[in-house]
Each structure stands twice: as structure tokens, then as C-alpha cells.
């Protein structure tokens, strides 16, 4: 079987298993754009489902109301008692939710989905309603993200399978080997299938060897192994079922490659329970190896590449969740919902929602206020109170603050300083257009000074730049400390800081203000390492006439992008930094 056909056969198996045990396995993430392979897979999946089971789409921009349910206002007003409109999450009970463009789902939508996947019930506390509705379903997440853009981790963690259909050719798409009847028959057998303890252990060992920390992974793998056995008509899980489970559930979650075999042995011997006999252990190590090998062979190529590339960017990708980098602003961005609120400056009243909220209370208020029918028209007026006001909330991408750290020491010749000033001015103009904030730190002599706290004022920035004198030592460690401190403060306000450090990397003044290149450089390196640990985006521009090894080393320590710019004019420098900031 060639590689594509093997992927397809596993994808079909995942479809059959999900159809067989939708609630236990959670579902499938399908990676790759729309195309014949995905259509074909969805068709296979549908054919595995009993006809009674419904599939419904989850639109990426669904509102909380649509998801969870709420009051059906029209019906409520007509009947004079609260009528509940069930949301999608309750409606889908016993079916399958098809999340199209899963990479674009809102964080709140993901959280609701996760809550129901965990508890198997929808809890609604909205619009005067308090309900608990049981709901169990599987999710098919169609993840069309490109490169880094992916469906949320927390959702993927709860779905047993992840398949990649992007690279398949027409020839790979062989006929499906399961249909609804097979699945139906297997579903009856599933509760009786047993799994040996050694297999549970093997799946745990394999998960650890592949660097999978979440405990949901081995748990889902155990359930998957059971389902594979049931599908094959077996009463107990066999080795090949465990192998399939490891391939399908664990391989796509791998974050590292297993250590070489001899290390593996020593690792396994320590935790082994003393109660286990040596004979047991001998049997069990080869089993682990077989399963691990099967899983390792099935790691999708893109994940394999990620694992191999991740030496430098690992920490950053782990901490800089994109979802955390958006913030709420009263006026701009994309509307993300409404809340009760007062009409303060800048708040935008949502008239429709306000009326919706006020509507049910009208008879009550009329009664309380006496007849308030307008005598002239004979029509009653709506009685709106302060509590009814609903404000539209917006979310925008968080503002970016660029911190320029400029080396104004003697070693950066005065000529270079002028170029840097010119470049910073150009970038300032650009930041001004994008409404980004800019801060400026200069260092020379024995100190680093914050010349310009984060601002959008172009004139202020220009003025403080023009007044920047040059000459003196290079207190690089102090400069990096100051930049890190400012960047952390900016980040804690919910904005995204970027540091642009312009230096030749030749530190010669240490934190205590003493000269001495060796100490100063060691300190600068240490400061750079600590800055790197924060995950803040840094661009290091080497401004020395010849690219310096010390500057490059510094860049590596702070996980920075390194730009060597000997003899650049202001415009080129500005373009280069812009390109690097935009790429991050």
C-alpha cells in the first residue's frame, strides 16, 4: 500500500470509529481545504452513520444565543409565558456537529463546545432562563487553517482523531470498507469489549515517548482501541487494535520524537512496579516498541517537520496564544456581543437588543405607572428603563507597541546614529498611520533612559529623537533590562509589544556602571536570555559596519530576528525592520 492509500484507509477507519462511538471519541479534526478528498471522506462518514443521526453545521460566527438558546421573543409575547428557543448545542443531541472553518471559531464558542463535550449537557443561564439540557454529540472540525492558523488546541485535545487529507491524489481514494450495517453491528459489541492492563500501559508509555502531556490522549486512545476491536468483531482488544489506536490518536499529537531505544529501556525500568515479575517486563518492552514504531511511522509529515524545526521557536509558539492577544475596546473592531451597561461616552447602544429586553416587561410597567397611553394617537408608548440598555461590545486586534532601543554610544559612530534616527522617524510615521504606539529608549555612557514613553504623538517622538546626543560607553545589559521591563508592562495592559534593538552588540559597561568588556558582555548575554524567556518579539538590527558575531549571538539568546545592516540608508533600514515586524 503506498503512503497516500495508507492515510486514506486510516481516515476511513477514523470515520467508522467516530460513527461507532461518537460520544466517547469526541470526533475528528479534518485538516486541509475543501476538495474532492474531503467531500469524499464526509460522504463515507455519512454512510457509516445510522439514517436517524443528524449532521448540522456550526457556523464560525454563531452568536451565544444561537449556540446556547434563549427566549423566543415572538412566541413568548404571543403566549404570555416564557417560550424557550433551544440553541444548536442542545438541538444536536445524539447527532454530529460539523464545524466548518474550525480555525475561525471564537474563543467563547470553543469554550461552550468544550463544556458540553465534557459534561454532556448544556447549561443555560440566560435571559431569565435556567435550564440543563442533556446533549451528547461528536464534532467534525473542518480545519482549513494555513500554516500556524489552526483550530483551538483545547478543542483538538478533546477530539480523538486528526486526519490530513491535503496531499491525497484521486488514485488514493479507494472504496470505503465500512458501511452503516458494520458500524451498527459493532456498536452493539462495544460495551463488552475488554482491554488488557498491559495495553493501557503501552498506550500511556507511547504517549509519553511522543511528548504528549495531556492525559486525554491516552484515554481517547484506550477508547479508540476498544472501538477498533468492536469493529473487527473481537471481544477483547488485540495488539493490532492498539497499534491502530496509537496511529490514529497519538501520532498526530506528537510533539517530539522518541529517544533512541537504549535510553528508552532505562526510562522504562525505573517506574515499573516491583510487583511485576521480570518475565512480564520482557514481554512488555517489545510490545511498547512495536506500538511506538507504528505511531512514529504515522506522524504526519507536517508535524514531523514542526518537531524538527522547533528548537528555536518552541517556547514562543507555546506561550503566545493568538486568542489572548485581542482586547476589548468600547468603540472599534468587530462586534462580539452585547452587555448590559450605561450609556457612557463611547458606548454604542444596541437598539434592537434593548427593545428585545424591554418588550416582555411592558404590561408590568404600564400597570405600575398607570395608563400611559398617548392621548393624541391612542397608541401606547414603550417604557424603557435604564436597566434595559444594551451596549454593543467590540473586539479589535490589540494595539501594537514598538519599542525602539537605540544605541547612542561612541562605538555606534555618529554617522550611524543619524541613520538610525532617520529610520525611526520613518517608522514612526508608519506607526502613526496604523495607530500603533511607539516608545524610545536610548542608551549611552552608564545608563539606559526611557526618552519617550509609549505614545502616538508623532511630534513628541520626533522632538525627543532630535535631541538625542551620542557618545560614551555601551551599557547594553541595562538597555535590555529597561526594554524588557517596558515590554512586560505593555503586555500586561493587553497590548502586543515588539522590541527593535539597534546596536553593534559590543557591550562595555556593566550594570553597576563599571567598564570592562568581558563582564559587560556576559551580563548582556544573560539579560538577553531572560528577555528571550519572556517570549516577547524582538528584532535586533546590527548597526556595525561589519556584521558582528557578538550581536548575532545576542539575537539567538533573545530568540530575536537578526538583521545585519551595514551601510544602510534610513529608508532601507526602515523597510527591513518593517518586514521583520510584519512577518512576526
Amino acid at each position: 500500500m503506498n503512503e497516500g492509500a495508507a492515510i486514506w484507509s486510516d481516515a476511513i477507519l477514523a470515520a467508522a470509529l467516530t460513527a461507532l462511538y461518537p460520544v466517547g471519541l469526541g470526533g475528528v479534526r479534518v485538516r486541509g481545504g475543501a476538495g474532492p478528498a474531503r467531500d469524499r471522506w464526509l460522504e463515507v462518514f455519512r454512510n457509516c452513520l445510522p439514517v436517524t443521526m443528524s449532521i448540522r453545521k456550526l457556523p464560525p460566527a454563531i452568536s451565544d444565543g444561537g449556540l446556547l438558546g434563549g427566549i423566543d421573543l415572538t412566541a413568548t409575547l404571543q403566549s404570555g409565558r416564557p417560550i424557550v428557543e433551544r440553541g444548536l448545542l442542545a438541538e444536536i443531541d445524539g447527532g454530529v456537529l460539523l464545524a466548518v472553518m474550525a480555525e475561525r471559531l471564537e474563543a467563547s464558542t470553543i469554550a461552550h463546545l468544550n463544556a458540553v463535550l465534557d459534561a454532556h449537557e448544556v447549561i443555560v443561564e440566560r435571559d431569565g432562563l435556567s435550564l440543563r439540557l442533556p446533549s451528547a454529540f461528536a464534532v467534525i472540525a473542518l480545519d482549513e487553517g494555513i500554516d500556524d492558523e489552526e483550530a483551538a488546541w483545547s478543542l483538538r485535545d478533546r477530539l480523538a482523531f486528526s486526519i490530513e487529507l491535503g496531499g491525497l491524489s484521486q488514485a488514493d481514494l479507494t472504496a470505503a470498507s465500512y458501511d452503516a450495517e458494520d458500524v451498527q453491528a459493532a456498536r452493539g459489541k462495544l460495551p463488552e469489549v475488554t482491554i488488557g492492563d498491559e495495553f493501557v500501559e503501552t498506550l500511556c508509555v507511547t504517549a509519553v515517548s511522543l511528548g504528549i502531556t495531556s492525559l486525554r490522549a491516552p484515554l481517547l486512545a484506550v477508547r479508540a482501541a476498544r472501538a477498533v476491536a468492536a469493529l473487527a468483531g473481537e471481544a477483547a482488544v488485540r495488539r493490532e487494535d492498539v497499534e491502530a489506536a496509537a496511529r490514529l490518536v497519538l501520532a498526530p499529537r506528537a510533539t517530539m520524537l522518541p529517544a533512541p531505544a537504549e535510553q528508552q529501556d532505562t526510562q522504562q525500568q525505573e517506574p515499573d512496579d516491583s510487583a511485576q515479575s521480570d518475565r512480564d517486563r520482557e514481554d512488555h518492552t517489545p510490545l511498547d516498541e512495536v506500538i511506538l514504531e507504528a505511531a512514529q511511522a504515522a506522524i504526519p509529515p507536517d508535524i514531523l517537520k514542526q518537531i524538527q524545526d522547533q528548537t528555536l521557536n518552541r517556547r514562543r509558539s507555546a506561550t503566545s496564544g493568538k486568542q489572548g492577544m485581542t482586547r476589548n475596546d468600547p468603540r472599534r473592531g468587530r462586534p462580539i456581543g452585547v452587555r448590559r451597561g450605561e450609556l457612557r461616552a463611547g458606548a454604542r447602544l444596541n437598539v434592537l437588543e434593548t427593545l428585545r429586553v424591554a418588550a416582555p416587561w411592558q404590561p408590568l410597567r404600564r400597570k405600575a405607572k398607570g395608563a400611559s397611553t398617548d392621548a393624541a394617537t391612542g397608541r401606547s408608548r414603550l417604557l424603557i428603563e435604564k436597566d434595559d440598555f444594551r451596549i454593543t461590545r467590540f473586539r479589535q486586534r490589540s494595539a501594537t507597541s514598538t519599542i525602539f532601543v537605540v544605541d547612542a554610544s561612541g562605538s555606534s559612530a555618529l554617522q550611524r546614529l543619524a541613520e538610525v534616527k532617520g529610520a525611526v522617524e520613518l517608522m514612526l510615521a508608519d506607526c502613526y498611520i496604523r495607530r500603533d504606539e511607539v516608545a524610545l529608549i536610548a542608551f549611552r555612557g552608564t545608563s539606559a533612559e526611557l526618552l519617550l514613553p509609549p505614545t502616538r504623538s508623532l511630534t513628541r517622538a520626533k522632538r525627543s529623537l532630535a535631541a538625542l546626543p551620542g557618545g560614551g560607553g555601551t551599557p547594553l545589559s541595562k538597555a535590555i533590562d529597561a526594554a524588557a521591563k517596558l515590554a512586560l508592562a505593555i503586555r500586561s495592559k493587553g497590548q502586543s509589544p515588539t522590541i527593535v534593538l539597534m546596536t553593534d552588540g559590543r557591550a562595555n559597561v556593566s550594570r553597576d556602571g563599571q567598564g570592562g568588556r568581558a563582564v559587560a558582555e556576559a551580563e548582556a548575554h544573560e539579560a538577553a536570555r531572560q528577555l528571550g524567556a519572556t517570549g516577547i518579539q524582538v528584532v535586533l538590527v546590527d548597526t556595525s559596519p561589519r556584521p558582528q558575531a557578538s550581536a548575532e549571538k545576542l539575537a539567538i539568546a533573545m530568540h530575536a530576528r537578526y538583521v545585519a545592516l551595514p551601510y544602510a540608508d534610513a529608508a532601507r533600514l526602515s523597510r527591513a525592520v518593517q518586514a521583520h515586524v510584519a512577518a512576526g
Partner: protein
Amino acid sequence: MATAFPFSAIVGQDEMKLALMIAAVDPKIGGVLAFGDRGSGKSTAVRALAALLPKMNAVAGCPYQCDPDDKAAQCAECRKPSKGKAKAHQVPVPVVDLPLGATEDRVVGALNLERALAHGEKSFEPGLLARANRGFLYIDEVNLLEDHLVDLLLDVAASGENVVERDGLSIRHPARIVLVGTGNPEEGELRPQLLDRFGLSIEVKTPEDLPTRVEVVKRRDAFENDPAGFVAEWAKEDAKQRKRITAARERLGSVAVADALLTKAAQLCMTLGTDGLRGELTLVRGARALAAIEGAKAVGEAHLKRVAPLALRHRLRRNPLDDSGSTVRVERALAECFAP
């Protein structure tokens, strides 16, 4: 509600279990915040706690399940002198879920919609805060909750009272709740101002050693195959824990705290540079509850040391030059203060 996983059957997670036990013994501790990895079973522990807590005595028919023996903490209705001796019954301690997407009216309570529509009359429909009175309010993914709701909850939790003014209705009712929040730091951080207002904070980590992981998966699997049987198997162990909570609550008032120990606590907080007195108070309170749980007559240094990371780690100022975690910093300060 589905059967909860038994508390005693939870493998590892000692800190999480300890914090929940402390909160169960002394609700005034000020809430528990648990942040941690995906799939590490934060929610499991909280739901397990609900099944573990001993039942409490409550006024029958009271929407706030007032304590019949504690006049001061009762709602206006129960306090009315005309009522005489109220009928009491045993109810489970409420552990109420605050689901994401909950609207403010359901959290604090609002006018009863049904009665307003059908009869045109105003009556108060108690919200989640009322339902959680004398118990726990559990917020999963607390970092995704709207900021204004988090503010409101912390306010109520601190004052022990919920005040609702709506449509000319003014209601004031007791809301003595222990907030339990869980979240995943990768999905957004909690504002530092809010962090500080939780009493204890826990970093939940997925166990790394293999035997523990295997045990977790095995137990979970066994539970899912036969929930009732699994719960029965652990019922005895859970009953033991329940007794420990009851005994510790009775003992709590009589646990002594020596002045020398208070000095130590203050010293520790000063070394760490925590802001305000809240950290110090929580530290002493937590240590006392722990001593009560362990059946000690007085708080010892060991108790203080065990509670210190939970009570203090979320109150440290971020130091940009120190990239070691806050737990490490607390441990370092402990070593410094308790040096022989």
C-alpha cells in the same frame, strides 16, 4: 446530573485536593483558583468535591437555603420574628456551575419573567448567587468570563451579600460563596487585580511519571465502564474524607496559632514583597485549616510551609529579571525564612 468521579479516586493532584479541602473546612479562605494544562482534570476535582461534602441543615423552602441556627446570616424572610421556629431539612452543599455565556440577570437574579408576563406582577427570581449561598460557585474557564462579571462575583464573594436593584425592586440577600475558578493560561491570562482576590491558587500539572499516568487512565477507564460500581468501590474512602471535613470544621475554632508563627508568616510575606495584608491573612487561615484537617492542636511550621505556595504564589509582583516561576520563588523564600 451524571455521576461524579469519586474524590478519593483522583490520582495525584495533591495541591488541588488540599486547596479544596481547606476551602470546605474554612469557606472564609476566599476562593480557589486553579490554572493548568489541558486535560489535567481540574474540573473533575471540583465536581468530585460536590459529591464529597457533608450535607448541611437548611430552612425548608428558603430559596437561599439559610442556616436555621445562624440568625445573623439569614435572609430577610427567615429573620422575620413572626416566623417562629423554622422547619429545617438536610440538603447537599450547593456546588453551582456558572456556565460561560451566563447573562448578568441570571447570575444576580432578576424579575421573574413568567409571573410578569402571566400575572403582571413583580416577583424576584433568585439567580445563581442565591443558589450557591453557603456553598461553592464553580467557574470553568474563568479567564474567558467577561471582566464585569468576574468583578461582580468577587465583590459579592467578599461582602457575602448580593444586592439587586431592578424595575423598582430592591432585594438584598445573603450570598456567602466560595468561588472556584479554573482555567488554562494559554487561553488568556487573568488580570492581576483579580488574581490577588482569590485566596488560594494552584498550578495544576499533568503528572509526568508513568505509573501515575497509567493509574489515571486505568481508573478513568474503569469509571466510564461502570460508574456505579466504581463509585461504590470508593464510597468508603470518600466517607472517610467526609468525616475528616466534618471533624476539622468542629476543631477549627480551637486550633491555636502561636505569636512566633504569625511573625514567621509576616516575615515570609515581606521577603516575597507581596502587596497588602491579604496574603498574610490567607496564609495563616489556610495553615489553621490544614492543622484542623490533620487533627493538630496548634498550627506548626510544617502547616505554614505547605500552605505558603498556595496562598502566596499569585500575589508576587512580576520581576522581569527573574524568569523562574513563582512557585520556585516562594520555595526560595521559605528556605530563607525557615533556615535554622
